[in-house]
C-alpha cells in the first residue's frame, strides 16, 4: 500500500478488498432450472447494480453467482459473500446477513464473528456511512433471493 493514503483509507481499501474487486469470485451466470432464483438490485442514487443467482436445494445454497457493476466496496462485498455462502444452509446465510449488517452499523461483537470470514475485512466501511449501503447491496439481493426461494418451496 501507499505512503500517501491516510490511516482510514488504508483500513478501508485493504489488499483483500482490492483483490476481490479486481478478481471477483463466483462471477458469472448459473444455468437456470427449477432450483435457481435470481434477483437484480440497484442503488438508484449511485447506479451500482448486482444480479445475484442462487441454486437452492433442500434449503441449502448449492451454488451462487453474480454479475455486477459498481464501486470496489459493493463488488468486493458481494464477491466475498458468495465465497462464504456457497454450501451453507439458508438459516446460516440469514445469520451471516444479520451479523454483517450489524458489523456495518458498528456492532463490534458482530465484527468478531468468525462466521463472517473474509467479510470482516470490510469492517472499516462502517466508518463511512455513505458507503455502508454499497457494502450491503449484495446482502440485499441475497435476502430477496432467499425469501423468493423459500416462498417458492412453500407455495
Amino acid at each position: 500500500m501507499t505512503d500517501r493514503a491516510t490511516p482510514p483509507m488504508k483500513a478501508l481499501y485493504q489488499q483483500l478488498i482490492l483483490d476481490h474487486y479486481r478478481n471477483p469470485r463466483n462471477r458469472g451466470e448459473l444455468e437456470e432450472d427449477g432450483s435457481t432464483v435470481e434477483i437484480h438490485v440497484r442503488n438508484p442514487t449511485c447506479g451500482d447494480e448486482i444480479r445475484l443467482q442462487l441454486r437452492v436445494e433442500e434449503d441449502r445454497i448449492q451454488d451462487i453467482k453474480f454479475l455486477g457493476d459498481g464501486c470496489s466496496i459493493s463488488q468486493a462485498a458481494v464477491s466475498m459473500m458468495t465465497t462464504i455462502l456457497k454450501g451453507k444452509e439458508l438459516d446460516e446465510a440469514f445469520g451471516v446477513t444479520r451479523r454483517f449488517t450489524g458489523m456495518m452499523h458498528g456492532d463490534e461483537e458482530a465484527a468478531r464473528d468468525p462466521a463472517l470470514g473474509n467479510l470482516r475485512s470490510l469492517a472499516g466501511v462502517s466508518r463511512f456511512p455513505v458507503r455502508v449501503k454499497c457494502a450491503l447491496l449484495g446482502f440485499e439481493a441475497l435476502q430477496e433471493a432467499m425469501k423468493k426461494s423459500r416462498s417458492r418451496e412453500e407455495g
Partner: protein
Amino acid sequence: MASPATHPPTDSPALAGSQSLGPRPGGSGPELDVEAIRADFPILHQEVNGRPLVYLDNAATSQKPAVVVEAIEGFYRRDNANVHRGLHELSRRSTERYEGARGVVASWLGVEDPGEVIWTRGATEAINLVARSWGDSHLREGDEILLTDLEHHSNLVPWQMLAARTGARLRYLELDDEGELILDDLPRILEGGRVRIAAISQVSNALGTLNPVAEIARQVKAHGGLVLVDGAQGAAHAPVRIPDLGIDFYAFSGHKMCGPTGVGVLWARRELLEAMEPFQGGGDMIDEVHRDHSTWAQLPYKFEAGTPNISGAIGLAEAIRYLNAVGAERILAHEQRLVRRTMKALEAMPGIRLFGPGDPAHRAGVVSFTMEGTHPHDIATILDSEGVAIRAGHHCAQLVMKRYGVAATARASFYLYNTEAEVDRLVESLGTVREIFG
C-alpha cells in the same frame, strides 16, 4: 439600517471598483482577485479530515458569501413579517424588500417587467410549473416536445409526465463524442412542424458544455415553437441576458449562484403567463373567492400561492448583486482557466478519460472524468479523506451516462472562489487514488 428597502452596494475588497468596470466581453478583463473573494466566503476557511477544505462540488450547490448570509439574518432580525398582508410597518418593509428582490432579478435578466418574474422553489419547480400550466392546456396528441440527451432529470421528467398526460411525443437532440449537441438534426426535426416547445439547458451540469441556446431558439421559434431554457447552471456560470437569448421561459435556482436553497425563478413572457392557468391554488394568488369558483390575481401573484420564501428572495437578490459586481464574464473566464489547468493535468495521467468538450472555451467550470480500474465513488471517498470535495455518480443525467457508456463519472466543478492551488490539490489527491488502486 436606515431604510430596510435600500441596500448599500456590496462592499467587499474583492469587488472594490469593479462595479464601474461593467461587463467585460469575452472574459478579457483582469483576472479575479480570488484571495479577496475567498475572504467573503466564511465556509471555505475550515479543515476537512485534517486538510484545508477544497470545495469542488459547485455544480451541485455553491457556497454563500457573508453578505448573503447577513442579508437573510438581517431580514429575520429586523424586518420579518408576511408580505402583501399586514398594514403595519414590518409588513411594509418585508413587502418592499421582497418586491425589491424581484426587481433585482428582472434587471439582472435584462427584462423590464418584474411581473414576468415568478418566485419558485427552484429550477425544478419552475420547469414543472411550465409543463403543467402551459403544457396541459396547449399540448395534445401528436404534438412534439424537443429535449436533448444532455438534460438534467429536472428538465426531462416533467416533460415525460406531460407527454404521458397529453399524448405528446418526445424528440431528442443528440450528443456528439465531445458532449456537444448535434444541431445538424434540428432542421429535420423541426420540418415536421409539430415541435410546440423545446426545453434545453444553457449549461450542462454533467459535462459543463455551453450550449448554443440562442441559435437553437432562433430555429425553433422560426417553426412556431416556444423555447424554455433550464438556466440552473447557466445563471450561475454564464452571462445571462434574456433579450439576447430570444426565448420564452427561463428557469433557475438561487442555491447554485451563491444564494440560499429553496428559492428560484421562472421568467416568462407576459402574454404567455396571462394565458396560462395557475400552477397551485391558495392564498395570495386569488382576486375574488366565491363558493364555487375564484378569480386569479394579476401577475406575478397568480403563480405564487401561499406565503413565499421571503428571506430566500432577499438572499438571492443579494447574491445577484454580489455576482454582478464581480462580473459573469470574468467568473466564466476564471472557471475556464481552472478547467484548462485541470484538463491538462488529467490528460497527462494514464488511464484517465475526460468527458465533454475538448476545448475549455466551450465549457463552464466542470470537468467530468473516469479513471480506469477505479470506480468514481472510490475516487470521491479517497479525495474526501484529503479534504477535497467532488461529486461522483450520474449527476442526475442518466442519458449522458448512457451516451458515453458509463454508469457514473467523477466530477470536479469550479466557481469564482476556487484557485489554481486547489486544482493542484485535486491532482495530488488523484495521485493517492492511483497509489491505492494501482
